[in-house]
């Protein structure tokens, strides 16, 4: 095997090994580690020194660090999960106490479980997504988008249950647009900005096109609610746009 060809072969193997690192670590150092590995191989080959045991040592040493980084990440994930679970429990106290004090608030036990799950899932989504980028605007954008999405999903769930009008299920398409957009954008700020603007546009379109059939006083409140949610989605989009521009500088 020619030295350069062998170097490329080993580099490919090493690149495969590096994929075992946690994603953020791999994104940050993967390319540099590959280069450094390649430099070490080349230095060794130019000096005509044995390569096999040296590479075995490098692979073992890297594998040990991969284990360490993954264990650190799992431990961080455990702490985050515990924190979010406790915060969700704290938030659950609000409807729990309110149901004892407000007349006519008769939630079943299952409703509290669903609400707790929603709080927990939203909190975990924030914790997982917001850590992808250090920029304040990105974190704020994630927070505003999740809060608006939660408010939309929650209010629509209550509204559908009260009105029994299946047409209101159309509002969930805003969340579907958000989910697909976030997946396509791979959580990159530029793509997320477009997704949030698309969500704001979809909600505007539904609010204008869908006849509410509600009495005038209720229709006014609904219009205010819609405007507020559209403004929140648009604000989140602007925050992601800011994060995207800041990342380019």
């Amino acid at each position, binding site marked *: 095997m020619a030295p350069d060809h062998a170097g490329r072969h080993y580099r490919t193997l090493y690149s495969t090994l590096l994929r075992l690192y946690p994603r953020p670590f791999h994104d*940050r*150092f993967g390319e*540099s580690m590959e*280069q*450094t590995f390649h430099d*070490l191989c080349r230095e060794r080959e130019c000096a005509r020194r044995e390569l096999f045991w040296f590479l075995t040592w490098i692979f073992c040493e890297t594998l040990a*660090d991969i284990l360490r980084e993954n264990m650190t990440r799992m431990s961080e994930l455990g702490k985050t999960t515990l924190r979010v679970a406790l915060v969700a429990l704290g938030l659950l106290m609000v409807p729990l106490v309110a149901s004892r004090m407000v007349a006519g608030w008769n939630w079943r036990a299952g409703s509290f479980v669903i609400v707790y799950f929603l709080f927990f899932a939203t909190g975990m989504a924030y914790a997982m997504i917001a850590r992808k980028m250090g920029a304040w605007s990105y974190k704020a954008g994630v927070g505003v988008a999740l809060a608006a999405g939660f408010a939309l999903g929650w209010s629509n769930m209550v509204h559908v249950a009260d009105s029994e009008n299946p047409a209101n299920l159309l509002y969930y398409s805003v969340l579907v647009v958000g989910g697909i957009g976030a997946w396509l954008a791979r959580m990159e700020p530029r793509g997320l900005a477009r997704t949030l603007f698309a969500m704001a546009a979809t909600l505007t379109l539904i609010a204008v096109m869908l006849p509410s059939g509600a009495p005038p006083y209720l229709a006014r409140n609904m219009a205010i609610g819609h405007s507020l949610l559209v403004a929140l989605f648009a604000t989140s989009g602007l925050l992601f746009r800011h994060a995207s521009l800041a990342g380019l500088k």
Partner: protein
Amino acid sequence: MTKKETGEAPLTPAVLHILLALSMGERHGYGIMKQVEADSEGKVKMGPGTLYGSMGRMMEAGLIRESDKRVDPQMDDERRIYYKLTGAGRAALEAELERYRGVVLVAEGRLAYGS
């Protein structure tokens, strides 16, 4: 991030050597490795796992940071990320060297007294 990497407690050998290597100027990963090897006269050999694992924790602690991505004129046409010491990194290195001086002073006094 543990206290070991923040300068509040003795630094790990890997962190100390990386700080020492970067105290001479910006370096890329391979450059840091070579500098560590030269500084320790070949006694310390650091693999990529130890190097980048330590650098990740040092960056979180604000001891070092990425500088820019450019070609090393002495190597090839691949662009490499360079790393540089921060003010906190320099302060941690100075504090560690001061601690070493204290240890050496005590050790020399004891050895002189013992002989």
